[in-house]
């Protein structure tokens, strides 16, 4: 699993990357009450706002960590947004992306580096 400074995680299986937000991000957001997903087929560039996760208080963009095309979105989330708080780094994945350049994933932080990054916040 790799991580971004915007608190997304990426997990690669073949050429499909699964993306979600980290436990730290979910904890910072508080109770998630709404999730907006991208359409399947949408082409993403790194840094594109691809989904929105909203708590009672505020809306937060989820950014594409890598380039690629959305192959699947987690359609359980709009009906059960609380999953994002309960299991952010597994069942509450947000999208799956067909990766165009795997090197972009290698360039992201590993868990040790991400945890060191969290310590600086």
């Amino acid at each position, binding site marked *: 699993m790799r991580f971004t400074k915007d608190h997304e995680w990426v997990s690669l299986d073949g050429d499909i990357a699964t993306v979600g937000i980290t436990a730290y991000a979910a904890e910072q957001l508080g*109770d998630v*009450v709404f999730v*907006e997903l991208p359409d399947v087929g949408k082409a993403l560039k790194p840094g594109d706002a691809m989904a929105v996760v909203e708590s009672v*208080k505020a*809306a937060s963009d989820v950014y594409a960590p890598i380039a690629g095309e959305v192959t699947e979105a987690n359609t359980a989330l709009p009906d059960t947004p609380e999953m994002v708080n309960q299991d952010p780094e597994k069942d509450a994945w947000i999208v799956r992306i067909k990766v165009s350049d795997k090197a972009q994933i290698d360039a992201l932080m590993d868990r040790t580096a991400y945890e060191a990054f969290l310590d600086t916040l």
Partner: protein
Amino acid sequence: MTHQPLKRTPLYESHQALGAKFVPFAGYEMPVQYRDGVLAEHRWTREHVGLFDVSHMGPALLTLVAPSGDPEADHAAIASALERLVPGDIAGLKRGGQRYTFLLNESGGIVDDLMIARPIPDDKQGLLYLVVNAGTKDGDFALIEKTLGGVAVLTPLADDALIALQGPEAAAVFAALVPEAADLGFMQTARFTLLGEKAAVSRSGYTGEDGYEILFPAAKAPALWARLLQDDRVRAVGLGARDSLRLEAGLPLYGHDLDETISPVEAGLTFALSKRRREAGDFPGGPRIQRELAGSLTRVRVGLKVQGAPAREGAEIADASGAVIGKVTSGGFSPSLSAPIALGFVPPAFSAIGTRLNVIVRGKPQPAEVAALPFVPHHYARKV
């Protein structure tokens, strides 16, 4: 202003001990939520009792400079002084009564919304108790001093803590400490002895629930806070849920739903304009407010039930043809209704309950319907 160090309330350490997450709010470091989180804290308040630290707000005393010693004459004098700034009937307040009103500017815009209470004892009739908003208190106090200088003196009660106890079981919880408090009706105040200290208590709040607001000496406030939390029905609730509770209750938040351009009539708060004051128009912006009361209005505050994503402050409101007709002034997710709700301003022609509108969220229109306020019924303990 943005670089001044944040102030802390007398209960800061109590919040820390409860695992509060702090945010800057109106110059204070305030608990936005505790370990339970906003949704659970909100629901707990609707079902049981929430305990809130609102010490960042601005309690103050307004005192007549030259009291005559005649209690009724002194109340009349202090009330008539304050009525130069507010459109509420202060002269007609009964002893122990509390009233919601506004400081107005010369064009009838709202400088702040505030509570005013009249003390009970004979020797305190030349005095009024005020509570203004946190973010506006310095300006409010300066305006009051400037306008009433020579007649009345304003004394901020900056060293006291203000605690709100809110929810359907609040009366039962508080009666265990102060049995006489059960006799207060909604918007009535009295002074009681609580943990050996003098407490100014009012039956009021800003959640839509029954409850009390308690002004208490700072040094003993952590002990009172801890004592109230000993009751299993009571849990600490942060500013996050305070905001979602007041939004469901349809209560406006100053700086968002109210500002210096918006009048009480536009904001749908005419209940706070007494008959005598409306007819006389003898307050700042009187002519505008009288015109608006006669029907000359370009915008009014409405409640919206929103489909889809929550519409936040600043979201545009459009009519069925797509024309932008107004803006959301506060909005979010209603834990009680499990749906997004919002407050905003639209022209009167679009303000009827059931009118179908759209809110623009992230560039896309979403259906929204004008809804009756409050979104969730109030449960006040009205007596008489």
